[in-house]
């Protein structure tokens, strides 16, 4: 069995044995389940609006309001109430979305200008018009034609897929998971390197194998562990969403998950090499934070750019970010999930990321080989590069 494989296996087993990892995994899964449950509980009645009607003057609203449902994209129900106080209570409790009192007043909880209010105002104008036309002696048939013309056909020039909201949600979750996994396991690589120096075990290990075998075994082992955790989280999320029936998962879920995983691997390799350079520069864990800090900031910045890309997938910033190797692993999956990305762009961006990862693999191996046995104060990058391997 190759040395690299042995090192990777040790990393995997020893990390998996640690309580910290188990707690973190459970927390992450708990969070996913909580989000799913909350959206199942709150999202369920979004498709129905209930309007309370008080007084005989309001009864005429019932039929036109129900008829306006399809235009609003909801089902409108009406309920007759005894007095204004009951209506106010209903609105306040959330049992009613709005109430019409004596055909003169509309009660809503917060928003005086939402679409339901607008629809009620429309019904009021329609009723007033009908009254005026009736009084003017317009024959009923003509009246019906005037008040209920055949609807205009609506054509969207740039139609959104039916599952647009789900795609955005998926992108937000995916980019968050990518960010967490990359930064957590990137830091684990740096921490593992420093731990071997501070515990002095490094010299024993390097008397048996070469520095690059140790480095890439470590990255492979932690990467495999990260992948397991990543896949577990996604699996629980997808299964939970299906079980709780939270809405239409996009038709592309399988392919999207595979794409996100591929981007995770490329992004992890890229960042793991950078974090290993940070680890190579110091020999005590106290010094690691200051070296890894700038790198963490870069990762956060890339995450934020990708996150805001969910709402503006076609902006210049998001497009550029989806090609820059450090941000591409987060920004490109977002663009792919939310927007319309030509396949060649995906391929070019992925190739660029892999190429830079390959370059960083060589660089980090050279720096690590030169500094692995060096104990003492923090090195500058320039001096680390000058150290002989």
């Amino acid at each position, binding site marked *: 069995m190759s040395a690299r494989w042995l090192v990777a296996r040790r990393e995997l087993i*020893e990390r998996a044995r640690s309580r910290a990892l188990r707690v973190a995994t459970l927390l992450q899964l708990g969070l996913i389940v909580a989000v799913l449950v909350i959206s199942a509980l709150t999202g369920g009645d979004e498709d129905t609006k209930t309007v309370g009607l008080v007084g005989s003057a309001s009864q005429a609203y019932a039929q036109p309001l129900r008829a306006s449902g399809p235009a609003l994209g909801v089902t409108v129900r009406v309920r007759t109430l005894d007095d204004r106080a009951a209506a106010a209570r209903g609105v306040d409790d959330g049992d009613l979305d709005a109430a019409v009192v004596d055909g003169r007043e509309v009660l809503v909880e917060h928003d005086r200008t939402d679409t339901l209010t607008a629809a009620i105002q429309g019904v009021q104008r329609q009723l007033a018009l009908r009254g005026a036309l009736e009084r003017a002696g317009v024959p009923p048939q003509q009246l019906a034609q005037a008040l209920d013309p055949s609807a205009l056909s609506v054509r969207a020039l740039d139609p959104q897929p039916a599952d647009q909201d789900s795609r955005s949600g998926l992108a937000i979750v995916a980019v968050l998971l990518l960010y967490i996994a990359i930064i957590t396991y990137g830091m684990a690589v740096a921490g593992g390197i420093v731990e071997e120096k501070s515990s002095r*075990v490094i010299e*024993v290990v390097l008397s*048996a*194998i070469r520095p690059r075998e140790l480095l890439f075994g470590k990255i492979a082992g932690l990467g495999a562990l990260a992948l397991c955790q990543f896949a577990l989280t996604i699996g629980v999320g997808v299964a939970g969403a299906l079980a709780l029936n939270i809405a239409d998962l996009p038709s592309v879920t399988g392919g999207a998950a595979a794409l996100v995983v591929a981007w995770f691997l490329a992004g992890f390799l890229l960042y793991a090499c950078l974090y290993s350079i940070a680890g190579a520069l110091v020999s005590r864990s106290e010094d690691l934070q200051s070296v890894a800090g700038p790198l963490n900031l870069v990762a956060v910045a890339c995450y934020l750019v990708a996150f805001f890309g969910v709402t503006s997938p076609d902006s210049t910033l998001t497009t550029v970010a989806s090609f820059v190797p450090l941000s591409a692993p987060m920004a490109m999956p977002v663009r792919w999930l939310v927007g319309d990305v030509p396949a060649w762009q995906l391929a070019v961006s992925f190739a660029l990321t892999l190429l830079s990862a390959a370059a960083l693999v060589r660089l980090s191996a050279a720096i690590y080989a030169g500094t692995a*046995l060096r104990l003492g104060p923090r090195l500058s990058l320039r001096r680390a590069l000058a150290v*002989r391997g």
Partner: protein
Amino acid sequence: MLRCRDLHLRYGSVVALDGLSLDVEAGRMTGFVGPNGAGKTSTMRIVLGVLGADAGEVTWNDAPLDADARRRFGYMPEERGLYPKMRVRDQLVYLARLHGLSAADAQTGSDELLERLGLTDRARDELETLSLGNQQRVQLAAALVHRPELLVLDEPFSGLDPIGVDVLSGVLRAEVERGVPVLFSSHQLELVERLCDAVAIVKDGRIVAAGDVEELRRRGRGRTLRVTVESGDGAGWLDGVDGARSIDTDGGGGNGSVLVALDEHADVQAVLDRARAAGPVTHFSEVLPTLSELFREVVQPEPAEEAIA
């Protein structure tokens, strides 16, 4: 056998090794002594391949040393350390496998060694929960677990209590008897003198004396005898013995003890005859300088040399 030839190493402007040559022979325990900073650790690191020399050659059984051969060496670095949170047995199995053993061999090797070092009941504990003494034993086990073909130990005795010293000496002896060349560095010269078959004394990056311990102690000096004649008074009895002279009459504690320097023609038996004639002889032995004395002799600069420098 291991052969280092003309090793050179510089750290910036500091010369660490300046043409160091060293042999470690099979079936012999070789002590590596010298002042701090003389180049012992650098030499050992070069042998183990964790450090590269600027120039010079290391051969193993007459072939240039490569990574495969090095994998079969055992090493205890001066800076001790293993994975603190890894279980003792897992750790040994892992290191044995890094050195190229199969899973089965690594497991049997670890179990045997833990048994031998009295650590079997701690095998499943994390290393950091062990006492310091037991951690040292695990460190030794880490150097031995893959049944190395050469053992290199940097200050293995430092920090050990007398029992630990005995355990380690016994283990090293057993390795030597197995035919393994053993090289260890130490500042405890009495220990080196007692344990080692050969010694190499290093100073300023080069070897200043090396070879069989006994030979080194005899080399380049006339023989010296300590003779004690009961009720003897002074060294008067020695007068007239060819090539022998008294150099000290009370170093041995007074009562008739005399230190006798002999030149190469002197007849030891003649000295003994003369002493017996003077009275009952209670002590008659050859005196060799201790390794400590030898060490000071070769390592400390002559006053004149220092003046020139």
